[in-house]
């Protein structure tokens, strides 16, 4: 029997790796990918709690998190494409048109 705390620790470690990828990379695509990594770690945690508390609420919430993650990825990439037409770069430190 796998203890619940193992799932929580795994979810926390993957979330921390996602946070590191979000804060430390220059490429916007990798930043979007780190957001998806963080959402997946939360999904693992929700499914684990749903199993160990014998409830269905965790799995339903995973369903909605996957839906919202898909919508957000689509719109984020559309914004990136729209921005790329004016200023052809994906490095975040070169996207500084609004800088004072």
């Amino acid at each position, binding site marked *: 029997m796998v203890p619940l705390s*193992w799932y929580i620790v795994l979810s926390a*470690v993957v979330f921390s790796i996602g946070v590191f990828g979000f804060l430390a990379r*220059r490429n916007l*695509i990798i930043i979007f990918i780190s957001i998806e990594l963080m959402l997946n770690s939360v999904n693992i945690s929700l499914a684990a709690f749903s*199993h*160990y508390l014998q409830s269905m609420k965790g799995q339903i919430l995973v369903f909605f998190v996957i839906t919202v993650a898909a919508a957000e990825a689509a719109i984020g990439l559309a914004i990136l494409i729209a921005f790329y037409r004016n200023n052809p770069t*994906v490095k975040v430190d070169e996207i500084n048109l609004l800088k004072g």
Partner: protein
Amino acid sequence: MTTPQLFFAYFAVAIIGMSVLVVTRRNPVHSVLWMLVLFVHIAALYLFLNAEFLAAIQIIIYAGAILVLFLFVIMLLNLRKEEIEIKFQKQWPVGMGIGIVFIIFFVLIIGKITVIPPPGEYTVKFVQSEGSIMTIGKVLYTEYLLPFEIASLILLVAIIGAVVLAKKKIS
């Protein structure tokens, strides 16, 4: 270590290793491909947790739709391998520090959770007798009907937004 624990240990180590590989690759296509293998491992973890519908949805939507979208955008923008340029921002030690603080905090504090579950009604036996899809369907269409309809509205807004934003202006 019992056999389920051994299998979980492989999946956990593989998921952590692959997520580190995802955020540190120079070539964004390599990152996306490691993320594909990562998603298949996470789907296997859902199978551990008696959630077959979630495992199928994970592979169909994440690996089949979102990753393909990422690959299309990478190839549309024609991103070359970042050969000479630096891949990390100049404040990456701050990011690493925050990540390590998160890990220490979660492992020391939350890793000691011992859950004494109150007997819920959706036990493993009950879910397995009816099937995971039927159980999720029953709960989703009765208790969570409003969030379900709102999720469909969210997807509609995402479709319209993506089409409008990425359309080329014909002058």
